[in-house]
């Protein structure tokens, strides 16, 4: 290894985050859907596009579904691109929900893409992507 290569290797090591992110976003979604195709639409992921504090960011997922026995959402999963882990949460629901809407508060380590995926009882998967800008990240203490 010449000097230039050694320096390049060093630089790469230095910019590595303390925790290497686990896997890629598309891969995490594929694992959850079991490789089934996903389509954009029917799902709405509501979150502020500019987040001034990543420690507790309100988020709401709504799926356009009549929530009847014949036609309903069975699960919703939330994924992120750049936190240490790709998973955020998974929710199981059914016709007894009456309305396919779930809210929670999440942590965001940095500016990144979020994806909500809904699974319908007919086996189809629907997604919505949102890009958010985070000005103050989660997980830093005073």
């Amino acid at each position: 290894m010449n000097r230039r290569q050694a320096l390049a290797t060093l630089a790469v090591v230095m910019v590595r985050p303390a925790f290497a992110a686990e896997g890629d976003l598309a891969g995490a979604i594929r694992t959850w859907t079991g490789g089934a195709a996903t389509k954009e639409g029917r799902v709405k992921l509501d979150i502020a596009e500019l987040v001034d504090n990543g420690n507790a960011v309100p988020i709401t997922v709504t799926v356009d579904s009549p929530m009847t026995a014949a036609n309903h959402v069975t699960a919703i999963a939330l994924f992120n691109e750049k936190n240490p882990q790709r998973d955020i949460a998974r929710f199981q629901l059914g016709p007894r929900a009456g309305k396919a809407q779930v809210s929670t508060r999440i942590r965001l380590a940095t500016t990144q893409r979020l994806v909500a995926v809904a699974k319908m009882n007919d086996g189809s998967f629907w997604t919505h992507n949102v890009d958010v800008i985070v000005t103050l990240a989660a997980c830093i203490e005073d």
Partner: protein
Amino acid sequence: MSPATQAMQKDDTQNPAMLWVKDGEALWSKPAANGKSCASCHNDAPKSMKGIAATYPAFDTQSRRPIHLSERINLCRKNKQDASPLPPEHQDLLSMESYVALQSRGMSIAPHRDKRMSEFFTRGEKHYKQRIGQLDLSCAQCHDDNPGKRLAGTPIPQAHPTGYPIYRLEWQGMGSLQRRIRNCMSGVRAEPFAFNSTEMAELETYLASRAAGMAMDAPAVRP
């Protein structure tokens, strides 16, 4: 504050500080070893504690200086309940304080116009304007000269402590005004005032006066 943070504070079913309030409510009537609870003397907090938090820091005749609400709670523990005082930022102390502070929600901040307080107020104002730390900054340089601007993405407020104790998103929990002030002081690389020190009481007395007339919004949520 972002609309999301404001919404979190406005709705009690979403405000995480209400978890501490609920704890405080339970502690209010929980008897100490000597059988006495807060309720033994003060009965119903919604009546007896209405407006009380809005008057703090208040002059304490024993120590002859202004004391913070949490210090008053600890004095009650010591003198009436024969219990040991709780350390600063203890969860039970924050819970009690949140519960008492809630009883002043919406009321005007009304510090006692006590003559004995004036020297503490004057020294508090001096602390506020004193440049400190390696960054050589005073409270006033941020909070009087640059409010509304941003510091590392976060808006600089005008230093009106209307909502303490607060649920601070950055802390992911509750904390007192003293903790917040100490954060600021270490932020400018200065030695923070000790918890419950006279200097802290002086600065808090000055800050309360600045906020006089503003509505209490405790327990507040802040970024």
